[in-house]
């Protein structure tokens, strides 16, 4: 049954590669052009909402957290186990995650951009909190709690992992 429907569907739509003006003319006659316009309007609104939903939001949060730097006067390396892989979470002048061997033994340092910084802080807030310098610890915790209430578009958040 599904196969038959698909066949029909393909055949039908193989015939509608028409220039837009032709489709618009037909749509106009059928009085449904508003439908297409409405779709475009909604699409534009959805795109515009990216400012409070997508990468822009992560960037904004990262920028706010950057103003709290340095997060710690000491460089603290925390071991994270992700399956068999050993990862290191570093809390120091900035916050970042990397390969444990490179960070702990080779003493590699990274400077993450705002978007990535926001992602690390939201994801590892509980691990980071005890090592943050005392003067910002309370505000940092509160900011993390608030940041965790934000909802990000799945694509912008997934792209970071």
């Amino acid at each position, binding site marked *: 049954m599904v196969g038959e429907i698909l066949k029909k569907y393909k055949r*039908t*739509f193989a015939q*509608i590669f028409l220039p*837009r003006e032709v489709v618009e003319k037909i749509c106009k006659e059928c009085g449904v052009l508003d439908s297409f316009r409405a*779709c475009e309007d909604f699409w534009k*609104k959805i795109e515009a909402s990216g400012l409070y939903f997508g990468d822009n939001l992560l960037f904004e949060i990262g920028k*706010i957290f950057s103003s709290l730097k340095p997060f710690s006067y000491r460089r603290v390396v925390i071991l994270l186990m992700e399956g068999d892989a050993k990862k290191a979470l570093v809390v120091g002048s900035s916050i970042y995650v990397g390969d444990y061997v490179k960070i702990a033994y080779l003493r590699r340092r990274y400077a993450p951009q705002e978007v990535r910084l926001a992602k690390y802080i939201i994801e590892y807030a509980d691990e980071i909190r005890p090592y943050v310098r005392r003067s910002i610890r309370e505000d940092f915790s*509160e900011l993390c709690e608030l940041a965790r209430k934000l909802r990000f578009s799945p694509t912008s958040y997934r792209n970071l992992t």
Partner: protein
Amino acid sequence: MVVGMVEITEKIVKIMDELVECERPAKRLPLLKELRVLADEFVAKDPRCRAIRTYVHKIKDVLHNPSSEKDLLGNYLVELRDEVRKLCMPIIVDEKHLYRKQWIDKIVVSESEEKDCYRIFFDRFLQKVEEEFFEFDGELLDDVILLVECLDEIRAEYECSYYCKGDFEILYYGYHSQEEASFKWIKCNALSVSYERPRDLVFHVPSKRDFWINIAETNIAENGILNLIKILDSVEEAYKEAYTKIASIVAKNEEVLRKIRNLAAPYALSTTL
């Protein structure tokens, strides 16, 4: 292309159109006579037509001589087709022609591997033309008629090429799975049409709109445009629903973001000082 050649081509095409409408051989005869003169004139002006005529004679010899090698026929047809293609190029480049709506449904559009790039295929279209081209009508098996058939292909090629030239928009349908299909309005910029390879045309897409459809839930009817209307309605509903959800998320996010900004304001101020 020589201006005179364009006029001759137009005349030939016009007669050919009339010829197609004639059902009885008696009515075809005066047209064929007129056509022969024009065809001779055409052939005399373009040496490539002589090559075509040579291949046509070779094909005829193979067809009428039972002892000849039939394998040769395929080669001759391929060579003849190549000659016709060579002949097509100047006409495609030099002349302007209004596109015909009936050609459009034979064009296939697909996404290219390159980003923001789509590819138009004329394969189905040309295959059909070639099928017709190699169908020999016993009554009209004459080199003049064959030449006219060659010109039919020329006309067809340059019509489909001119359809693609310039900025235009098309509706692209993509099938993904049993549950998903997408529709895209593609704005095409096909100013750089490759006339040498009109069957494989790549055009750039400055912007696109995706309409995702759940085909398992869509009621399917034979009429494409009615389907399109239904789809637009369902797309509007889907967008409305998506937008309502996003709007509520955005409102909550704005509220939280305001609190975060207030809390972090002293730190932000100290970094700017």
